[in-house]
């Protein structure tokens, strides 16, 4: 059987998720043996390219990139969004809140009109995505799980419960108890509570659990005295595309 052909592409990103792939040093040679990597940090003209699985890193932030995305979609059987930038637009979405023209002026001054840009969006705004690997950066274990399942033709096991579950299993002292606040209550697990385990707050870089609106999370936050502003600011860092990043009209979070 021919080895599946795999390609990597990047749009607006820091390339940290592709580096996470390289960071699987111990498994890397195994992966390289099991697939044909046809495009990864190399210059290969996609137009003549054939691949089965396309990993796409980065947000969609420039209308002229739409064609490139559509082309990748057409070539690939399976499209995997690699990391927060691709899955939700990631932190790039912050610029949408700062005003695009204003941002460009601030950085480039008079020269702003030389360069093309548009609001930052997830790649799903342009093409259909089959699998998402969340996180900023992606956790290595999840990348490996997705690669193995895609190769075996099964659906990858990706949790849809809050980071708190993993955090409690790791027996971390909850940041709320230290007078801090944390988005772990509504963030999608799968990172093994990475940040709280190293003393950092969870910013929900992996996105929000599906039913975060229904479950008690918001009440929990309010209970801990989190202000609406704080929650919005934290959500915005990585979840600007979700409606929750705009203050709800009814002020539901106000205690």
């Amino acid at each position, binding site marked *: 059987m021919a080895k599946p052909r795999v390609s990597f592409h990047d749009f607006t990103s820091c*390339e940290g998720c592709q580096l996470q792939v390289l960071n699987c*040093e111990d498994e890397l040679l195994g992966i*390289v043996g099991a697939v044909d990597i046809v495009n990864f940090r190399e210059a290969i003209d996609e137009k003549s390219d054939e691949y089965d699985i396309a990993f796409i890193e980065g947000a969609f932030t420039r209308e002229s990139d739409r064609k490139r995305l559509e082309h990748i979609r057409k070539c690939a059987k399976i499209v995997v969004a690699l990391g927060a930038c691709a899955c939700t637009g990631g932190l790039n979405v912050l610029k949408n809140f700062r005003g695009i023209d204003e941002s460009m002026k601030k950085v480039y001054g008079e020269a702003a009109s030389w360069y093309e840009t548009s609001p930052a969006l997830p790649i799903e705004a342009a093409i259909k995505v089959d699998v998402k690997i969340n996180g900023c950066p992606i956790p290595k274990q999840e990348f490996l799980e997705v690669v193995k399942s895609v190769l075996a033709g099964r659906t990858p096991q990706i949790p849809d419960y809050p980071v708190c579950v993993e955090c409690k299993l790791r027996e971390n002292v909850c940041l709320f108890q230290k007078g801090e606040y944390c988005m772990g209550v509504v963030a999608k697990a799968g990172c093994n509570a990475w940040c709280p385990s190293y003393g950092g707050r969870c910013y929900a870089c992996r996105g929000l659990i599906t039913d975060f609106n229904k479950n008690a999370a918001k009440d929990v936050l309010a209970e801990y005295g989190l202000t609406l502003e704080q929650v919005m600011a934290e959500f915005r860092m990585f979840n600007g595309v979700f409606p929750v990043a705009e203050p709800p009209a009814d002020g539901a979070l106000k205690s």
Partner: protein
Amino acid sequence: MGKTLDINIHHLTRVEGHGNIIVRASDGKVEKCHLQIVETPRVFESMICGLSWRDTAMLTCRICGICSVGHTTASIQATDDAFGLKLTPEVLALRKLMLLAEEIQSHVLHVYFLAAPDALGAGSVLPLASSHPEVVKRALRMKKVGNVICDAVAGRHVHPIALVPGGFTHVPSKKDLKKVQDYILMLNDDVDATVETVAAIGGAFPKFEREREDVSLTHPDEYAFYNGQLKSSKTGVHDIHDYAKVIHEFCVEHSTSKHVRNVDACLAVGALSRFNNNAAQLNDRGQAAAKKLGLKAPCYNPYYNNLAQTVEIAHFYDEAVKLMDQIMKMDLTEATLAPNVTPKAGRGIGLTEVPRGLLVHDYTYDEKGVCTKANCIIPTGMNLANIDHDMQKYVPEVINTRTQDQIGHDLEMLVRSYDPCISCSVHLLKVDWV
């Protein structure tokens, strides 16, 4: 008859590409020759405004995943500076260890994955995995030291968690640190083997020279990397707070990354600039590597940045061994590591030598510690004008002796030698001849 050259990439029709090389020459005369950067504008300096001091480094480390620790380091130094924070020796030691880890990891990636395939005539590192498996395994083993160190100290290398203004939010256990130390020591022979490997391919780089202005940090006590004063080979030593007197930014239409100049039309940063400015302070291992590779300061062959990086791998490795030894004897506790930060209004500046060269972060905070203004100057951006000038000197020198394809390949290697952030370096390097 003079030759006509037209090297051009139309970035809108070409797919994966953040940078292009454009060369146009007719009748043996070069009319146009530059590196185009068409990366999407990311406007970090605007996104950062309105963020709390706790989040500024979290955002700006995401400028580049490969230099994530370097960006975090410059960023938190800017915040430390703005708030007037004092650091304990323990915090300083762990910060430096993480930065050394990143310098080694990034240089190893560049030398083995980008420069070596070029020199060995392979399209990428992938064919080397079957033709030179032991070399690729060595590269992966050495590269991993970045992760081993950063995972233990700050949770991860790509966007470190515990590395924050004023200190660390996590206390690494002695047990974990012992494992880190063992890992570092295990690489001893790999360092020598790396110097050997590069010495063997060093002859493959073109002999080309252009005198240039080297800009880097300099430090009275060490080969500067974490902090220090700003040194220009043309204008001398400056306080870092005066960086804007040396690094003048300006926009050019062909690049979404700003260009930079000082006294001349361009300046250079990076391993070779550090080496040129501070070679006398290299440790014994670094000196030995330089000798083996035949690298002498000042060196004006930009292709030899690859060699300077190799010298730095040897130097930084021994520095990491020494520092690790000191860290094992230190009292690492919450009392010595936990950040103690009181924000205040003011401006702070952080300059750090990251793998690709000097990095500047400059923030202004209000009294609540909310960022109101920021400027980040990235090493790849600082080198762009210099790359243009190198190409403009190189092409006329070889236009009548080398073929179009050869010149195209030489220019690709030239750009790669500067080790521009991977997003530019790796995608641009297919040159269309029109």
